[in-house]
């Protein structure tokens, strides 16, 4: 395998657009009156926007409350990594208290992003429950956190990086990248 080689991930997975449709179908039964969807920047927010359209148009569920989180300030590796260049304000335009929150992320890996997102949510209020929806679970969790809904589950090596990409016309795709071998400690995946 050549290092740093970016290629589409469809040899192992359906296309991101197909997976998105599967995710919307699986998500539908979870929606109740008191549910709010929260996308995690940036892939989770792309998914959130597409899911809202799918759910509202095809399944006729309207006015789903939603928001976005940028978990940079809550990451456990902040001191090492610092801020990303394009850090966006979190926007939670509804009362979190007693809501059933569904977090949306693109690729579930270690669970550290989810932990950061949960910590941030609790600074807005006390939700009734939090669930996690991810497009792909790539394996490799480091915390006792698992997504409740995924469109695909695969097992990737620690040297592989799976990433959701949005092109200029909004089309979503998954890219698989082989990282140069590093020492196993101190990995800082998304």
């Amino acid at each position, binding site marked *: 395998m050549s290092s740093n080689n970016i290629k589409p991930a469809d040899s192992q997975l359906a296309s991101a657009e197909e997976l998105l449709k599967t995710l919307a179908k699986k998500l539908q039964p979870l929606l109740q009156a008191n549910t709010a969807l929260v996308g995690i920047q940036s892939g989770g927010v792309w998914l959130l926007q597409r899911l809202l359209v799918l759910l509202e148009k095809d399944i006729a569920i309207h006015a789903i409350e939603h928001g976005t989180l*940028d978990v*940079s*300030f*809550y990451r456990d*590796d*902040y*001191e*090492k*990594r*610092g*801020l*990303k*260049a*394009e*850090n*966006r*304000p*979190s*926007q939670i335009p509804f009362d*979190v208290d007693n809501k059933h929150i569904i977090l949306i992320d693109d690729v579930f890996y270690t669970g550290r992003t989810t932990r950061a997102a949960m*910590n*941030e949510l*609790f*600074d*807005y*209020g006390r939700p009734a429950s939090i669930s996690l929806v991810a497009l792909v679970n790539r394996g490799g969790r480091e915390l006792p956190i698992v997504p409740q809904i995924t469109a695909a589950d695969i097992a990737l090596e620690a040297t592989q990086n799976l990433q959701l990409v949005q092109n200029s016309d909004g089309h979503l795709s998954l890219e698989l990248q082989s990282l140069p071998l590093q020492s196993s400690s101190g990995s*800082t995946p998304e």
Partner: protein
Amino acid sequence: MNNPQLDTDGRLRHLLSIEGLPKKILNQILDTAESFVGVAEREVKKVPLLRGKTVCNLFFENSTRTRTTFEIAAKRLSADVISLNVNTSSQSKGETILDTVDNLIAMHADMFVVRHSQSGAAHFIAKHVPNHIHVINAGDGRHSHPTQGLLDMFTIRKYKPDLHNLRVAIVGDVLHSRVARSEIHALTTLGVPEVRVIAPKTLLPAHVEKLGVHVFHDLQAGLKDVDVVMMLRLQNERMNGAMLPSPQEYFKTYGLTQEKLNLAKPDAIVLHPGPMNRGVEIDSSVADGAQSVILPQVTYGIAIRMAVMAMLAGGQGGQA
């Protein structure tokens, strides 16, 4: 040339002056501050970024607003904060600045926020401290007050998002003002096309036009068609000798009244770094009027200081 404010990767290591900072860093601070404005509106007004860190406010010169907002900013980032008014402590017993700093480093301080009446004090401390410690200049003599300059830019951007299309006037005691210097450098770095300074000759530094500003001695002429009016405080405590006939006389010629403000664009905004001398540089009706954004400046000052501290504390483990 080696820039003491940036590390080898071009990231912010100390904030000492606006001068010498690239536009990219200024914009990054302003953008990061946007995220912190929202934090203050939540149920829990805190993020855990500086948890376990100790921020030391070293104020060798009096300040209420700046010290308080730095203190609130550090606390909202979950840092532990120590505020020292050094006039009243060991310095008055003869301890040198560097001895004071070394003692606080021995107590494991991680960040210093420094205000001093001597220009260059924060640079002096920044040169002295070990690598993992960060210094923020909270005002040094007549030289620089970078977080004030940044919060003014943030405030302007909130009301007038297109900085490339603005006419800005800075009015008053430019000679003694570190705020004016920081504002001028910030405005020109961010690409504001026309910056004016309006003041009597006695309150302007020599060759001020070399900073890229247009000089006016007449308030009415200078205010014509500006989008932003940035007032400065008349710094009586820094004046030695007769620079002005009297505060009343100054108000007559350079005090901002509604009548004079009407010469600016109808939607012009008025800023003042505080503390205000009402009836000297600014009329109460303007300070409390519809065009004043003086209190929003204070609120945004917290977000800016949070952004600066967050950027200094993060990213110490190499390129992300």
